[in-house]
């Protein structure tokens, strides 16, 4: 559909919808791709431009009316400024469904409806099912509104006042049931704890402050088991030793907590150290065994492992230590040697590769040169061929000239006899023209 049609349609469809979908309170977060970039709400009746950008119908309509210069056929897309001339009303069903599926609160939350429904259903929810919507009173003469759930099956007007028999107040009929059960100031109830009679409305506040409610001592968490009336608790708290010692307990608790934390930390570090120690010990044992074996073989291997005492073992450890350093150096040496080997390997490898590439290049260049040579040759041939007639002419003229001069040289005679041969090219012309063309010698060379 082109733009004027779209605008006309947009103007027509100023629908008086019950619910403004852009004012809804969204319960869950929704994907930002489902958001119209103009109104920042999930798309409402999305439409699509040629560049595949999607907007709400209404948003696009208002954007077009302000941006477009009058009667121009096109309009720049708000997102990418691609000129658009057509607006497509069909966007993927998927997109519409995803937008309609977002959960929203009923807009009548302020009136008491706590329903959460998908956005696609909110219109019908408010229209048909929500009990908190205000509808005109069935009695047309009344002119007031009433909540839908208060409507009586017999379509009676509930706005007439009736007097509460106890408090002498005028209460609207629709609120009467509530008033009768809870709100009437004359309704009284008895506090179970203190036995006083209080108005029912204030029962909740009363329970919080009633002096007769039994409550535990503040130090109950430290072990005071006293539970007495609220009125007496102040006296008890003055005497209770646990209350006065409470702050001390608390300080101790925090100290304990921090100490526990440090301990856990230290334990972790200790574990790490122990691991390291075990590692060191195992390597040492390995060395000791190796050096012990070596030593025994030198001595003759007569000594029994069982017979060795503690002192022996410690000396063993010392030798192990010294052998350890030498071994370490040896291993270092070995690894260095290996590295050098590797590097030399790599070097030879590189060398080979470099020479290979050079050879390849050389071959290529040689080939190229051959090509160029061939080309030069062919060019030369052509030049020759082109020059041929001219040379012929020149020769003929020369011949005429010489014949008229009467002293034809034997050489020209010789060449003219060879003229009809296959190498007719330069043969006859060579004689008279040679002094004029220094490049001839080269030509002859290539010809050979």
């Amino acid at each position, binding site marked *: 559909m082109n733009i004027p049609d779209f605008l006309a349609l947009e103007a027509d469809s100023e629908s008086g919808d019950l619910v403004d979908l*852009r*004012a809804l309170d969204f319960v869950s977060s929704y994907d930002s791709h489902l958001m119209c970039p*103009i109104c*920042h*709400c999930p798309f409402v009746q999305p439409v699509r431009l040629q560049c595949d950008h999607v907007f709400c119908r209404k948003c696009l309509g*208002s*954007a077009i009316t302000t941006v477009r210069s009058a009667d121009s056929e096109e309009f720049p897309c*708000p997102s990418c400024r691609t000129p658009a001339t057509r607006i497509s009303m069909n966007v993927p069903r998927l997109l519409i469904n995803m937008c309609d599926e977002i959960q929203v609160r009923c807009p009548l939350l302020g009136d008491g409806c706590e329903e959460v429904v998908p956005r696609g259903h909110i219109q019908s929810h408010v229209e048909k099912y929500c009990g908190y919507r205000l509808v005109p009173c069935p009695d047309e003469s009344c002119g007031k509104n009433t909540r839908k759930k208060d409507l009586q099956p017999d379509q009676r007007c509930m706005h007439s006042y009736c007097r509460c028999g106890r408090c002498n107040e005028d209460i609207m009929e629709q609120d009467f049931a509530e008033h009768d059960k809870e709100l009437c100031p004359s309704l009284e109830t008895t506090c179970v704890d203190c036995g006083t009679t209080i108005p029912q409305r204030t029962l909740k506040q009363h329970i919080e402050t009633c002096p007769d409610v039994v409550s535990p001592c503040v130090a109950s968490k430290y072990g005071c088991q006293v539970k007495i009336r609220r009125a007496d608790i102040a006296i008890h708290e003055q005497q209770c030793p646990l209350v006065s010692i409470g702050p001390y307990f608390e300080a101790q608790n925090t100290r304990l907590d921090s100490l526990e934390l440090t301990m856990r930390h230290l334990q972790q570090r200790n574990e790490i150290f122990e691991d390291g120690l075990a590692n060191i010990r195992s390597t040492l044992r390995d060395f000791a065994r190796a050096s012990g074996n070596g030593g025994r073989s030198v001595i003759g291997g007569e000594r029994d492992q069982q017979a060795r005492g503690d002192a022996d073992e410690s000396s063993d450890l010392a030798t192990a230590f010294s052998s350890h350093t030498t071994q370490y150096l040896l291993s270092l040496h070995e690894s260095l040697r290996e590295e050098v080997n590797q590097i030399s390997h790599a070097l030879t490898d590189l060398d080979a590769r470099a020479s290979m590439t050079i050879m390849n290049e050389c071959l290529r260049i040689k080939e190229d040169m051959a090509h160029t040579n061939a080309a030069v040759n062919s060019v030369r041939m052509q030049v020759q061929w082109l020059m041929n007639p001219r040379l012929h002419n020149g020769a003929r003229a020369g011949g005429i000239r010489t014949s008229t001069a009467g002293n034809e040289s034997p050489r020209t005679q010789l060449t003219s006899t060879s003229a009809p041969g296959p190498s007719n090219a330069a043969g006859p012309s060579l004689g008279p023209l040679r002094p004029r063309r220094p490049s001839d010698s080269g030509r002859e060379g290539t010809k050979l």
Partner: protein
Amino acid sequence: MFANKRLSKELLKLQEHVPPGVSIAKSDNLEEWQMDIKVLDDNPIYQGQTYRLKFTFSNKYPIEPPEVQFIELPATSDTPRPIPMHPHIYSNGIICLDLLSSSGWSPVQTVESVCMSIQSMLTANSRNERPPGDSDFVAYNRRRIRDIPFVYEDDNV
């Protein structure tokens, strides 16, 4: 109405997350906001400075562009906010940027995107100067920002 809804949504989003170098200085109503912006790279012209932008929204936002200009807070205050030096920013804070004109504006722009555009306009600048004719303009301009016939001749910004 439209503007309020959109602005409150933008505000919610900005309170959750602002781009680096941008912060909300004042947003207690839905007609005028103030944003603080910083230039993030080491451009020597703007090093260590914070600038304050004032956004004034009409009730047709975002269909119509907001009025955006730099405002100056004196150097002696707790939060000194100078007017940045830029060949397209007049010394009274008015910015010559086609994005903010009704022809360059697009309703998909947001306060966030405008802040980032101005931020990058400052970042890309290397000339420590005011626009030509700055003193005359500042002395004689009594028009509202949207009525000033800017000419957007420089495409290098």
